């Protein structure tokens, strides 16, 4: 086949009816503030780690809301917990604690 330097990107379609939301639900149980997020991106804009590891609280929350747990985990691993996102959050979400809670509930099922 001829190579033109283009390829078809993998589909990013997701069927929200079939997605497993258990992680998001569990998160909302212990951090009800997670629902307050309006995805403004202030957290991502100030993030110290974002530049180096791709961490973004906004993306993590969106990923979890779409059931993309593995992707969220990859981002969370880069967090440096400096707390700047908490200080700039216009919704007053304690994002630093939210990140810690998420790190805790990952792998809770295996126990």
């Amino acid at each position, binding site marked *: 086949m001829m190579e033109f330097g283009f390829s078809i990107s993998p589909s990013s379609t997701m069927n929200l009816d079939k997605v497993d939301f258990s992680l998001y639900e569990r998160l909302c149980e212990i951090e009800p503030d997670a629902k307050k997020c309006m995805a403004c991106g202030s957290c991502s804009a100030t993030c*110290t*780690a974002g530049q180096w590891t791709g961490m973004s609280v906004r993306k993590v929350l969106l990923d979890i809301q779409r059931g993309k747990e593995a992707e969220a985990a990859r981002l969370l691993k880069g967090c440096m*917990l*400096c*707390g700047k996102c908490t200080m700039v959050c216009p919704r007053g979400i304690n994002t*630093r604690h939210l990140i*810690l809670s998420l*790190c805790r509930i990952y792998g809770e099922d295996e126990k």
Partner: protein
Amino acid sequence: MIDRFASGFDPFVIPFLIGMIFVLGYCIIGAIRLILQLDAEDKKKFFLSLITPKTIWKNIKDLFLNCLIHVKLWKRNKLLGYMHSSIAFGWFMLILLGHIECFVYMPHRVKLFYYPIFFNYFVAENEYTLRGAIFFFLMDFFLLVVLSGIVLAIIKRVRSRLFGMRRTTRPTLLDRVGLYSLWMIFPLRLLAESFTAHISGGSFLTIPMNMMFKAFLGDQMNMLPTWWAYSICLCIFMCVLPFTRYMHIPAEMLLIPFRNAGLTIKHARRGFAKAQVYSCPNCGVCIDACPMSIKKANIKDTTVYLNRNIRRRNEQRIEEISDKCLLCGKCTAVCQVGVDGPQMRIAQRSIRNYGLDQDYSGMDISAIKESVASEPSKDKVLYFAGCMTQLTPAISRAMESIFRKAGVDYAFMDKDGGLCCGRPILMAGRFDQARQLIHKNKEVIKASGAGTLVLSCPICYKIFREHYKLEGIRVMHHTEYMLELVRAGRLKLDGGAGSIVYHDPCELGRGCGIYEQPREVLRQTGELVEAEANRDMAICCGGSLGSLTLGFDKREDLTRNALHNLTVNDPDTIVTACPLCKSTFARYADKPVEDIAETVDKHTK
């Protein structure tokens, strides 16, 4: 003196013996357990300290001054100090003199464990005794001293405000049993010795009491019951002691040598940490000191309750208390036994299980390294602003301006973004992750070849000073560095800043002990006034990263209280040396809030 009884024994000593053997056994086994719980390095440190003359002397001095005289309490409040030292030192002297008395008059009885305690029951005075009448006088004198302390203790229980304490803890049921038995011991001793004073001799207290009792009681039968009661009270006190707040008495005797050996908390619940928990006297001084306890909120989240819940193994409460704390360290500054509240809490946070661990190993930081890399030079300065200064860029701009004015050869390590210093993640109890960040940052600093590292954030400064181990590089907070520039004449201040109040940031003041350097700079910048509570008593701004769970909506009262404390002398400007304090205060202050770097930059000639 002669023996009244050939056997030298009476059944009433049995309760005392039971209590004494129990409490001694419990404490010795407990101490051995705590020592065994230390890791190998700490054990070595501890045993070495026990044979090093310098630490031996320090141990003896600290034990005497803290456990018996309660010097720290005297400094805080004279009444509280007198109350504690009269009971502790008085009781100690009673025991010591009792033994000396026994040794002088009845050397053949010294081997009997109980004899010196109940000396006055077992002996009868004869014509030779008077030569030692000074003992009788001293015994009565110290008994009076202890009794005066007990009277104060009873008053304190009813009105703690008279002793400068607004809030205190509620004693538990066993605490009360211990407390009341402690109160009863000394009046009963007085009664018992008074009833026997005509036989065994006595002094200014017991002899008149004996005569008075004879006038209306006249019955020898009162003698034995009071000695029984005295012995039983001692027994009750000693039997409940390990389960009450009075455990701090023996525990502090272990904590002081531990601390002098230079141990740190390595495990949340074992060894040194456990010694701290048991040394907490539950006095509740930390409640009034805690910045979170303003408007009666969060009282149950203070260090005293952390210690209580660790003793009760209430895991849920331990977690809540340790996560909420701002780690400002004020409880430690006021604590009489030196329980390290922040370190205890960080240790509790470190034993959590996380399903996901941060990992920065794959992170590529060559861009930062390249941007600062240069030939090693002693005169070169590397400036690290840190995350919080990134949020308040006025500070880093002022710092750059100061560097230029003073003609410093500097490099800005995180001008285009840098890594976190690792302190926030360390405060969250995740030591391995902090270590990784430290390692990464160290690579950059080494590559820069700078001889001095300047930091404008006390949070960074603390971890750089304590954990980075940068050999050959001076680590300085910008307040120290500016003072150096001013002293060297490279920076000239005009002194026209008006009146300034300086806020001591927790991490810089209590955390690193830097109080004078910023003040000296500010005295040359303007007229320095002091806050009501300053230096190690400064009040946390409420913005601390130490707390994991306290939301920003709940911190307003804390900040307003800290601001109120700062503005008592009506200054023109509030100056601090921490970007986090600055942004926190700026939210609610009605006066301009500046970082010291901004003030200095504005007022250089």
